[in-house]
């Protein structure tokens, strides 16, 4: 199978959906001729023109509300939010409007929007452009939340998100954009709410999200040389969460480490840990449920500090080893 990057996979999913359905279009800041801050929409303006690739002013509040109005009247908009940190200006529309509209209206109206947005640190953009704030949106009933960790997943999950009749937050990762793997050319769907076991193992389960899936796989590979056999589960969608796959894995291994980039405190890893803690898996646990999340600090600019602010392959390995004692 041909290999493409995560970035290309995201783009391809959008292009295929836009070709298939006239109601699908994309709007966002600098997504036109500029191709988007990270280049994801590069070439789409040329292909689909200014009506369906709508370059917007810098006004996150207007554009995040605009997609709602368009969706409820029959369109299926994709919004590219330039950095996931800017959700702070779009929060009202996403959490108070899009998520609740149908419920408030007693089951009338649908809001099929996808908000694509890159999160994460590691690019040297400092505190206001490097956060992983997906936990916020997982707290809001009415939203679905997706966080793909690979090109293959990104394409299939984005198609599912665009096909979805509900608002979906779709968290991409700046550092993943350049990663490559085999991705089918034709359109395919990965259903929302299905986790994937990225690597089988028997000694310990790592539940990892986003870029931490890749780092955990790397850690697992290195650990296997030391005789530790790790299973890596990627929820892929945070809401709805595939509890079964996670619990099943933990039952098998008896140990679980949850790895996520977001600030540890109140990150989505806390929800995953809690779901495990309150389940019947409790009786199978050989060690406390552990989390490895981002430090409780804003993301610093200095590259070495920035690296230390979130889990890396070595810190994942350390955490596993500590649990295996």
């Amino acid at each position, binding site marked *: 199978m041909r290999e493409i990057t995560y970035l290309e996979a995201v783009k391809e999913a959008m292009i295929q959906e836009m070709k298939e359905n006239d109601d699908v*279009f994309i709007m966002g800041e600098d997504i036109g001729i500029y191709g988007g801050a990270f280049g994801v929409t590069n070439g789409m303006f040329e292909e689909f023109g200014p*009506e369906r690739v*709508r370059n*917007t*002013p810098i*006004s996150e*509040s*207007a*554009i*995040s*509300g*605009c*997609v*709602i*109005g*368009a*969706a*409820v*009247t*029959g*369109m299926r*908009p994709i919004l590219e939010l330039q950095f996931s940190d800017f959700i702070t200006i779009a929060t*009202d*529309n996403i959490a*108070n*409007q899009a998520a609740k*509209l*149908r*419920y*408030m*209206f*007693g*089951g*009338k*109206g*649908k*809001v*099929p929007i996808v908000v694509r947005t890159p999160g994460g640190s590691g690019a040297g953009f400092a505190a206001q452009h490097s956060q992983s704030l997906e936990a916020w949106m997982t707290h809001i*009933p*009415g939203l*679905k939340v997706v966080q793909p960790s690979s090109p293959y997943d990104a394409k299939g999950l984005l198609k599912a998100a665009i096909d979805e*009749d*509900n608002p979906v937050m779709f968290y991409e990762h700046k550092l993943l954009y350049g990663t490559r793997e085999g991705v089918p050319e034709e359109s395919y769907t990965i259903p929302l709410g299905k986790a994937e076991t990225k690597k089988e193992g028997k000694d310990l389960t790592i539940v990892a999200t986003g870029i931490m899936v890749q780092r955990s796989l790397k850690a697992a590979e290195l650990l296997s040389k030391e005789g530790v056999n790790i299973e890596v589960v990627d929820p892929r969608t945070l809401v709805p969460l595939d509890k079964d796959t996670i619990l099943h894995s933990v039952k098998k291994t008896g140990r679980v480490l949850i790895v996520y980039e977001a600030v540890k405190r109140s990150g989505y890893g806390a929800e995953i840990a809690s779901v495990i803690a309150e389940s019947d898996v409790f009786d199978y646990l050989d060690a406390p449920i552990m989390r490895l999340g981002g430090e409780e600090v804003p993301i610093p600019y200095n590259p070495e500090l920035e690296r230390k602010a979130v889990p890396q392959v070595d810190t994942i390995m350390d955490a596993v080893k500590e649990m295996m004692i």
Partner: protein
Amino acid sequence: MARLSKAIKDPKKTLYQMILIRSFEEKVEQLFQQGKIHGTMHLCIGQEATAVGVCSLLDNQDKIISTHRGHGHCIAKGTKVDRMMAELLGKETGYCKGKGGSMHIADLDKGNLGANGIVAGGLPIAVGAALTSHMKNLGYVVCCFFGDGATNEGAFHEALNLASIWNLPVIFFCENNKYAMSGSTDDMINIQKIADRSKSYGIPGITIDGNNINEVADAIDTAIKHAKNNKGPTLIEAETYRWRGHSRSDARKYRDREEEKEWRDNRDPIALFIEQLKENNILTDGELEDIKKRVIEEIEEAVKFAEDSVEPSINSLKEDIYA
């Protein structure tokens, strides 16, 4: 002799709707005082000319977006008072099955995209609804209601800018009732006419007497034509006044009784319109009585319908979240 707007096609129906809104609100107030409605409510008594003046010129496929003070807009857009009343009583037959209440009544079939509990929350959504009209070439306009207070929110600014640069068929209709809860426009806005804020976006802006329904109809008529002729949005500022407090618990300490009296006694939109109709020999006393009688009956029926309706089932708590 008072000039009647040519845009008002059916003056008696128009009057009827204004009176229906007033009676609805008075009944809601009463039910609230009797403890039959809980939560909060924002009455539009005194502002009937804007709601009716605007909506009477809209087609069924044209859309409105309303506010926390939205009962009048709903009724004027054709939403039925029985199911509205049922919603206020939290009943299953309500427009939102009892889940939304006063601040969230919507009637998508009638082009009413809903009230909104967030001040200025409706404006960006209205722009999006207008975008659909534009992209799918549907020919409808969207009229977005909001208050004077909402014009100080960032969402107002961003929405008008976006609608302007994309030249969308949306009308921004500001009901300037001089206060946002307690903050008066004199204190919170440093210009005389909110309509002048249109100048930041290169769109037409006009200030009208919102209690004279003829002015409302004329202004909205022009704005609709403007939008439907692909000329983009308009900002209309309609000066009006809410007779009651902001919501249930408002002692109205921030304004004086003289001012209230002036608006009630001399600028009542319903009394003014009746006078104008009579002057123009369009309405007889008998017809007026008939209208009032019909309204009273309709409201009584609505209350009965609402009170007789069942409560939503407990199971419904977890329904209607996802499509």
